[in-house]
């Protein structure tokens, strides 16, 4: 409960217990169990329509769960009205009050809670986001980035136990987004609040958050530190939503104390036992494109490396830091390779015959049943996300 006249002592942890949310016609969240530790920067990552914004609105009290309980700092807030929860939101649309000055916008929450010296504290919060010089202006007179910072100041000034960020950087250009990411992160470290950040931008989630939860179709697919999620994805969805992956499916043919061997169209690929979720039957294994090495000649067989090839380079695209190659290997399909640009120009050209290799320790095995591989067909493609975003934008524009 948001106490009158005082701030929350520190960030609080957030707990979801068996939360479900059903809308007429579809289920947004099914049986969600989640604990976000106090003081952490938690990112909820997923494609549009995966239920992440609904999750956020449930915490803010803007939606009511169909079942389950929500605990903030150990207190059950499921029945608490949104204005009584010790939670503040930075809205995707910012939702700055157009009829108030920037300063009054920031002081709004303080005034409602009858906190001493609301204007002084509002100025302080605006200094934090380096916008005190525009305190007297109206939100409409600010740029998108400035409005975003005002929205952040308006939420942070209340020192909520839990700060919710609903894709707040979505409307900013790349450079401003980088800058705001750093700023957000430093504010979080400085004031020690619990941040719950919802985004579909995997890079943003990975750079900012301590813990990332990848959400798909109303369920959390995998949760953990960004490096852990990236290096050891557990499902095909995570492997493809968080960065790119080369995935292969085949039966397990051999197994030792610390590794399993998978038959990938005739070649034995070795994956460490600890990095594989399933150790028998048909399994899907994967490796990140930047872990792959290109060879112009067949590399000598080595116990510590997996080799695939020969294949033909069908596409070379230069992206500054690295060059990405698409290699068609007969019987396997396309394999993507990212190579650092250590020399000028691509090392190999289109049409070249190449082999790819990677250190055994870089491979990972997924827990999905290969038959269920089609469980995530549309959602994982960036195209589907783009279409969904466009539809969302259109409905939003219609509503405005």
């Amino acid at each position, binding site marked *: 409960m948001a106490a009158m006249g005082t701030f929350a002592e520190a960030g609080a942890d957030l707990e979801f217990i068996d939360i479900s949310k059903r809308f007429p016609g579809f289920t947004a969240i099914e049986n969600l169990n989640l604990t976000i530790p106090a003081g952490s920067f938690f990112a909820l990552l997923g494609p549009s329509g995966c239920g992440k914004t609904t999750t956020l609105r449930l915490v803010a009290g803007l939606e009511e769960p169909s079942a389950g309980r929500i605990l903030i700092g150990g207190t059950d807030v499921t029945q608490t009205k*949104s204005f009584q929860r010790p939670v*503040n939101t930075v809205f995707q649309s910012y939702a700055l009050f157009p009829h108030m000055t920037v300063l009054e916008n920031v002081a*709004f929450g303080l005034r*409602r809670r009858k906190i001493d010296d609301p204007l002084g504290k509002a100025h302080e919060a605006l200094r934090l986001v380096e916008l005190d010089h525009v305190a007297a202006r109206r939100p*409409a007179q600010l740029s998108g980035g400035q409005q975003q910072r005002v929205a952040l100041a308006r939420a942070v000034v*209340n020192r909520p136990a839990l700060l919710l960020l609903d894709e707040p950087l979505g409307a900013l250009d790349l450079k401003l987004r980088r800058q705001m990411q750093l700023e957000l992160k430093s504010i979080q470290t400085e004031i020690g609040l619990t941040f719950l950040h919802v985004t579909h931008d995997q890079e943003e989630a990975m750079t900012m958050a301590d813990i990332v939860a990848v959400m798909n179709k109303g369920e959390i697919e995998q949760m953990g530190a960004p490096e852990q999620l990236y290096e050891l994805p557990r499902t095909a969805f995570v492997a493809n939503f968080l960065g790119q992956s080369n995935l292969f499916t085949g039966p397990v043919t051999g197994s030792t104390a610390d590794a399993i061997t998978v038959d990938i169209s005739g070649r034995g690929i070795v994956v460490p036992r600890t990095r594989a979720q399933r150790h028998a039957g048909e399994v899907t294994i994967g490796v990140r494109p930047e872990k792959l090495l290109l060879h112009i000649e067949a590399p000598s067989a080595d116990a510590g490396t997996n080799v695939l090839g020969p294949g033909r380079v069908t596409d070379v695209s230069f992206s500054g830091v690295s060059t990405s190659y698409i290699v068609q290997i007969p019987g396997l399909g396309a394999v993507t390779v990212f190579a650092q640009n250590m020399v000028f120009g691509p090392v190999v050209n289109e049409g070249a015959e190449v082999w790819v290799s990677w250190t055994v320790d870089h491979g990972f095995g997924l827990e999905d049943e290969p038959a269920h591989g089609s469980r995530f067909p549309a959602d994982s493609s960036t195209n589907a996300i783009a279409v969904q975003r466009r539809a969302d934008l259109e409905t939003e524009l219609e509503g405005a």
Partner: protein
Amino acid sequence: MAFAAFASTDAAVTKPARRASTVALVLLLPGILYMVLFFLTPLISLVITSFQAELPGGDIGDYIPGLQWQNYVDSASEYLPHILRAFGYALAATVFALVISYPIAYFIGVKARRWPLLQSLMLTLVIAPFFISFLLRTLAWKQILSDESPVVLALKAVAILPADGHLTGTPFAVIFGLTYNFIPFMTLPLYTTLERLDIRFLEAGNDLYASPATTFLKVTVPLSMPGIISGTLLTFIPAAGDYINASRDFLGSSKTAMLGNAIEANFLTLQNYPVAAALSIILMAVILILVGVYVRRSGTEDLL
């Protein structure tokens, strides 16, 4: 050479602007002509009439041009009760219409958003009274509120109204009639602003510890101010000059006569044109001043 280059650019920049203003002027011409003919001319004639003096020894209704400032002082003091009633009743009717219309407009514009059919149906119901003449509707109310009507008998039966009480001819009936007649004018502008109200602002208010009541006062009301201003103006201005509701033939009596009734009587019955003209000018001036102060003080420049 260099100067010539500058000169030519200058001309190139100014020319299209001048052509545009000529076009605008031509397009405005019919409107300006109309205003001069049907607003400015009658207004000047009204001002001239208001200063006319009585023709010594002339008939009733004979006046000569003059500069009788006295007309204003005389009519204002003689009809002060009418002036006060006009603005008092109009104010009361505006307040009541606002209180009644806001929830209706809020329901149609915000709550019923998900059901466009219900929205249009309710809007039609708000406008429906316009399908019947204003006079007929007011006469119907006279019937409903008359002494022998079931309404009055019922009120007498439960002793809300004393045994010798009336509804027609009282300030209550006049304000009631004004409120009733102007509710659509209040509801429609309110609806148009509330219909565009972004629900996300209300969510932001709730998120920032404002209870629903506080959110309404601090967010919804200020954001719907353009609608409140235009609705109140559309109600107050015509209501202040109204002479139907307060007329003895409709809901009023001589005790409830408003400024409009005084003007009507002076123009048509007493044929005291200078007084009628002076009263009209007074009505217009007071409305202009009140509206000017009101719009300025409400501070809706950024929202309009």
